[in-house]
């Protein structure tokens, strides 16, 4: 009972603090803008801990955060091996292959108007489909190891990057293209000096969408068969053993990997598209 009351008091305190910070005079400061969501997150974690202990929720339903952290700390080698198998081998290699293939095809498609009219509707349509469903087929073709996961990731990231790159390559005005023509620029020069740089915000938008898809593809593909390691494999077997603390630890890894992957792409974007209005503050 004391835990529940503690949780309620904590909630009121955390919310009160945030309300004061958010409506206070320093709300626009960067430190406050970071502090408020952090306080919110920490409050949620503490309340979770208190409520699980207070109501003595069984471990097979919801383990407390402290236990998840302990499991995370104890099984670092396993988690690292899973991370390498699923993220580095499966997701990253698939992301690069799929991204590069989509990029090259986009440049070809952009060159021929007929192809663009034909492929773009098909690509847009494919981007909305549940492509994860190809996982069982690709696992059958490429075996249980990371190659099949990379193949799923290739198919998943391909269409968003293709569609965004093609859209980006068209994002120059007639005036800009005419200017290049008056300079007597060749197709290659126009592509590299004008159209590709102008397309970068779109390309990075596609890449950012693809980061999440890459992880989803690599994890879900492991549900259809995998060697005895990998994040998806660990999640499905630990769920079977009702070892939910391990599942949560693996989810923490997935969340960290996803956020850092996205963050890394966003950082590269900042460096490449420093000229774009959305990056200038």
């Amino acid at each position, binding site marked *: 009972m004391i835990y529940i009351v503690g949780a309620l008091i904590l909630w009121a305190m955390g919310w009160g603090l945030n309300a004061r910070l958010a409506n206070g005079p320093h709300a626009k400061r960067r430190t406050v803008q970071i502090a408020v*969501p952090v306080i919110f997150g920490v409050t949620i974690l503490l309340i979770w801990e208190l409520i699980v202990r207070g109501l003595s929720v*069984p471990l097979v339903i919801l383990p407390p955060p402290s236990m998840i952290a302990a499991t995370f700390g104890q099984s670092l080698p396993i988690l690292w091996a899973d991370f390498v198998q699923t993220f580095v081998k499966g997701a990253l290699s698939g992301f690069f292959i799929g991204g590069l293939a989509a990029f090259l095809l986009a440049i070809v498609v952009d060159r021929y108007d007929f192809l663009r009219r034909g492929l773009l509707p098909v690509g847009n349509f494919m981007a909305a489909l549940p492509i994860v469903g190809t996982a069982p087929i690709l696992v059958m073709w490429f075996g249980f190891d990371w190659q099949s996961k990379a193949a799923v990731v290739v198919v998943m990231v391909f269409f968003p990057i293709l569609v965004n790159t093609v859209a980006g390559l068209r994002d120059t005005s007639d005036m800009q293209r005419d200017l290049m023509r008056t300079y007597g620029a060749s197709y290659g020069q126009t592509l590299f000096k004008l159209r590709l740089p102008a397309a970068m915000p779109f390309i990075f938008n596609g890449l950012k969408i693809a980061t999440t898809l890459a992880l989803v593809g690599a994890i879900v593909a492991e*549900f259809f068969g995998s060697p005895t390691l990998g994040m998806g494999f660990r999640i499905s077997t630990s769920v079977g053993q009702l070892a939910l603390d391990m599942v949560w630890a693996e989810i923490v890894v997935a969340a960290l990997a996803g956020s850092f992957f996205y963050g890394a792409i966003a950082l590269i974007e900042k460096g490449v598209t420093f000229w774009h209005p959305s990056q200038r503050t």
Partner: protein
Amino acid sequence: MFKRSILPVLAVLGVIIALWYATCIPMNAAWTIQQLERSGETMTTTEHIVDSWSQERPRLPAPHQVAAELWDTTVMKSVTSKKSLVYHGWITLSATLLGFGIGTTLGVLLAIGIVHSRTMDMSVMPWAIVSQTIPIIAIAPMIIVVLYSVGVQGLLPKAVISAYLSFFPVVVGMVKGLRSPDAMQLDLLRTYSASNAQRLWLLRLPASVPYLFASLKIGVAASLVGAIVGELPTGAVRGLGARLLAGSYYGQTVQIWSALFAAAILAAGLVILVGLIERMTLRKMGERP
């Protein structure tokens, strides 16, 4: 119209199908050659090609085999049969729609809360954005098992996953939409001395409709993926995800491909339906093309 937009699409689809048929030959030939070596018979090249398009368990089924299986399991079977794709599709679709409804409703409510409370905005919004970069689907198996252990099973666990996946796109899109009225419009309502509720109903909600539909299209596709993935980890026996899983266990490639196409048709249908509703709503609200 035909020459500019339909013909190129048909040409691309034609090339894809031709490539598909061509890929079938090397993919499926190995099995035939193995069989022939065992029996000591020989085949001409034409026989080889025809054979690669008509195997019972090919590595890559030919398009007409998939089409025949789709026809066989939708039109020819009664809808209540366990072999009917309409039956499995309905199981998945009902979970998708229920989850999509729950996720959208909660998403809109949270967005309204965020727009009206600075505290909520600053506390929750960063997490809603971050949550889009993490593979939420990883928790699907856990949700199924946890809900099962507290006695909830069947439609609801899958719907929870669907709801979860459609929730965040709707929150992010709706917050953008509810904030889209500019300062002048908000000032005008203030000069009318409109209440908070009036400002919401008369200005913010109508202004957010285009944003809502953009998120709904993403959300409904995500919901379907959620429902399909929700059927995988427990070894469910009903639904499109279960058909995929069963097909991969027993090497029934034609079954996998037909389930995949059924899922694709379902997804396309849902997105098109949302698009139609969007167009009707916007026209009713007075948008001119």
